[in-house]
Every structure is written in C-alpha cells, then in structure tokens.
C-alpha cells in the first residue's frame, strides 16, 4: 500500500448497547458477533404492507438488519449451504426504513452504500441506530467465513431464496465500516464533499453534450441517490 494509515478495528454485538454505539466514529472498522437477519424489499413489504407477523423476536434476538441476499441454498434435508454474503444497495429502502426501525428496534442497519443524511436524521437518530457499510464491494467470501451457521430461513417459500429472511449467526464477522454515527453524520457525504472540490479541474476542457436530457443535474457535487 502507499502511505495509508490503518483504521481502528472494533468488535461489536448485534444487540449493541447505546454506549457501545456512542463509541463508534466514522471510518471505524467493525466486526460483529451475534445474530443478524437479512431483510430487504421483500421482507419489508411483507411485514409492513401485508402486516405479516415477523417470525423472530426483535430486537431481543437481533438488532442488526442486513440488506443482503446470501449466495446460499437449502438442502433437501432442510439444512443450509452458505457461500458468500454481500450486501445490496440500501438507498432503495428509504420508504420502509423508518417504519421498520420503529417496529423491529433495529440499531444496526448494514448494507451497501449507506443511505442519505436525511434518512439518518429522520429515522436513524431518533431510533438510536447507525449504519454499517460492507467493504469493497464486496468481501463476500470474508463475510461468509464470519457466519458460524445459518440459524433459520423464514419466508423463503413466499419470497424466494434471494428475498427470504436469513438468520445468520455471526462470529467476528466483518469487515464493516461505520458510515453513520448517532448524530446522523455520513462518512460517504464527508468523502463526497472532499472529492467534489477537485471535480471542476478534472472536467476542465470537456464539453456538455449537444443534446440535453430531462431530469439531469449539472452539479457534480450532487448525490445520485434519494
């Protein structure tokens, strides 16, 4: 590597105390212990819109919601084979996240790419939750190694394997990076601001397309999500 310095590494429970969460700083590297469940659009729709009963005790069993579908299969005897585990992009779940947090008591939202600072202020901060981003993306094999076993799969018949609610037993599972803190600050937004400062120079000499498109922004510091 170049002249890079190493980030801080921290082990964290998937039912974390408010004190443990308050310790975390943007850019810290986190490894998780305890139960994690996957929930993305399928689970959110079923639990929140169709009002199905959530088949777990939340948040006492787990306060860690992973936006993820593992590369995994269910054997004929009902056991599981899990290979790699990689997150999916979280910004698409804004419409459900507030209601989901209120209902599930989730304190750790884990996924790809974070959510907007607006989501953090509106939904994460009031619920005392933070966002952990996966690394890469994605370190699927490393995260797969951190899963001691698959405890259960719920709703796979209704939603298919990719959208099912997988309950994973994490043992020093990581790496994840702290993307938002309890105050709702975002690491991605901090980095975007630094990069944006240089963009005008990079674009120098290039010309806008002669044929415009609707709905575009020409402000390169804009976020594309949300």
């Amino acid at each position: 590597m170049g002249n890079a310095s190493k980030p801080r590494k921290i082990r964290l429970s998937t039912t974390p105390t408010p004190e443990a969460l308050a310790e975390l700083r943007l850019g810290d590297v986190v490894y998780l212990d305890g139960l994690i469940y996957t929930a993305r659009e399928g689970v959110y729709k079923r639990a929140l819109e169709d009002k199905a009963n959530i088949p777990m005790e939340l948040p006492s069993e787990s306060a860690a919601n992973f936006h993820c579908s593992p590369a995994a299969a269910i054997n004929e005897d009902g056991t599981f084979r899990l290979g790699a585990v990689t997150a999916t992009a979280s910004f698409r779940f804004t419409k459900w996240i507030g209601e989901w947090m209120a209902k599930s008591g989730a304190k750790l939202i884990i996924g790809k790419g974070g959510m907007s600072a607006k989501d953090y202020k509106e939904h994460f901060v009031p619920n005392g939750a933070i966002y952990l981003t996966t690394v890469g993306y994605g370190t699927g094999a490393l995260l797969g190694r951190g899963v001691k076993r698959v405890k259960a799969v719920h709703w796979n018949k209704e939603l298919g394997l990719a959208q099912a609610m997988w309950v994973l037993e994490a043992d020093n599972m990581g790496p994840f990076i702290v993307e938002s803190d309890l105050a709702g600050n975002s690491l991605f937004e901090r980095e975007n601001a630094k990069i944006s400062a240089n963009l005008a120079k990079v674009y120098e000499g290039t010309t806008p397309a002669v044929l415009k498109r609707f709905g575009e922004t020409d402000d390169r510091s804009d976020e594309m999500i949300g």
Partner: protein
Amino acid sequence: MIPIDIIQKTAEILMDKAAIEIPQDYLDGLQAAASVEDGDLSSFVLEAMLENYKAAKEDRRAMCGDTGTPRWYVKMGNETQIEGGPIALEAALRRATANATNGVPLRPNRVHPLWRTDHDNNVGIGAPEIEYGYEPGGEWIDLITVHKGGLFGTDYRMLFPSDGIQGIKRFYLDCLVAFGKRGLACQPAIIGIGLGGCKDTCMVLGKRAACLRVVGSRNSDPRIAELELELKELGNSIGMGAMGFVGKSMVIDANIEVGYCHTGGMQMSVHAFCLSSRRAVARVFADGRVEYRTDPDWFTDYQRRETVEWEMPQNHEKSA
C-alpha cells in the same frame, strides 16, 4: 462432432471457476492499483478485497455474494458441429447454469421483472443470455461465462460528431463520478466503452469491451489504444477511489470497442466490470479435449473486420 455431455460438464466447471477465482489479469491490475493507493480508507478497502480473493479460493466459496447475472458467450470455429445441434447446446448451458446455482452455491438473482418470480436457479425467460460469435477455420467451441453485477455503473448516451472527444470524456467522467459515489459501481473496475453501432449494439460493444478483454490488452487501432490509456488516466485522476472514498483507484483498465454507426451520430455506452470481474473460459475440441483459460480472446481481427470480404491470414489458427 463435439460431445454434448462434455459441453455441459465443462460449463458447470466454468460457472464454479468464474464465481470463485478472480482472473489473474484483474488481480495483477488491482495489486498495481493497491501499491500506489494512499487514501486511508481506499487502501483499507483494496487490502480487504485482496484478502477476500484468497479466502474465496481457499474455501471454494463465491468471492462475492452478489454472483451477478450469469451469462454465456459462445464462439465456434467454422467447421464446428455440436452433438444435438444448437438446441442441445442451449439446453446444456441452461442446465449448467441451474445446476451450478445450486451447487456452488450462487445467489439465485434472476427474477421476472414484473411478477418477481424466482426459480431459484438463475434460469428464466431470456436468462441466461447466450450470445454467439464465429471464427474462420477450426473445429472447437469456446464457452465463456461472465458473472457481472447488474444495477449500477452502466449508461448510454446519444452523442453527435460535434460532441467530439471532449464530449466523450465528459460523459465518461459523468458515469464514473455518478456511479462511483458511495462505490455503487464497485470500483476500481474495468471500464468498457462502446462507441457507435446502433443503440443496442453500442450497449453490446461496451459490455463486451468490459467483460471480454483482459486488463492490459489494447485495441488494435493505435489511436483508439491511445484514447484508452488517456481515459484510464483521466478516471484515476478524479480523486476518488474504492467505495467513493478519497483515493486514486477508479479504473483498472479502460477498453474501447467501436462499430460503424449512423453518419449523424456517435453513440456511447459505458460499463463497469467490478471488483469481482468474473469470467472463465474453456475451449472444447471435437476429440473431447478441454483447455481452460481466463482470456476470452473475443475481439480477434475477424470480429473487428472492416471490409466486405475476409481474407484468412496465414496464422488464423493462432489468432482465433
């Protein structure tokens, strides 16, 4: 005649290899990027990825949990015949895709766009895609599988001759900056750029430029090759690295492929083949012999031919 059972068995092995083994050319490119990266967070990310490739091989598990949308590129020599014909070939590739999805396992990503039906095997309407190419001479079939992630990093724009090279650079930067934020494109990536053709072929050219050329290869047109290097450097000068963190590793390589287009237009597409640039290739011969490799060697002189007739070069066996 190429035995169909060998085709299916080989295809299953390729699905496994693609999902688990990062191609050496991409690995070399990423190691080179990591050696000069000085952004703290970007560096950490690249280091974690290098460790991840090792873990995937050691454990024989997929390198990324999003195993993409597996697809097939098939190339045949002019004398090739397949036992059971093209219908049997397509059935074998669909079976291999389904079997490997359960076997590796891969994530069953493929669903119906409206009804979200998931067969849990990555097979459905139009899935996996199977595309074909042909080469003069020879009795062999190349099976190429590509597992590319599908949601971010790709865009198309109708540019015009008056947009020129500066317009190309602008749209290229727009794609990298827009999809690079928060690392949605899973960069550093092999960036494939399609120029010309029609809208659909422009997309196909860009995708193939990203997925079917190895890192370090250059377009056979020296002026295009020069532009490739220029775009690579431009992408790495944005100041953005892995995951959209401050850094300098966005582009492992920039590959351009062109096709003749409408005289008034200059179609452009941009594709990003991610940190898990997954491809695996095998050539199956009529005697049942199988040779595995990671270079698709898709863009031969024949594929890029410009004229009506094609004169077979003396060493066509080698170039094909």
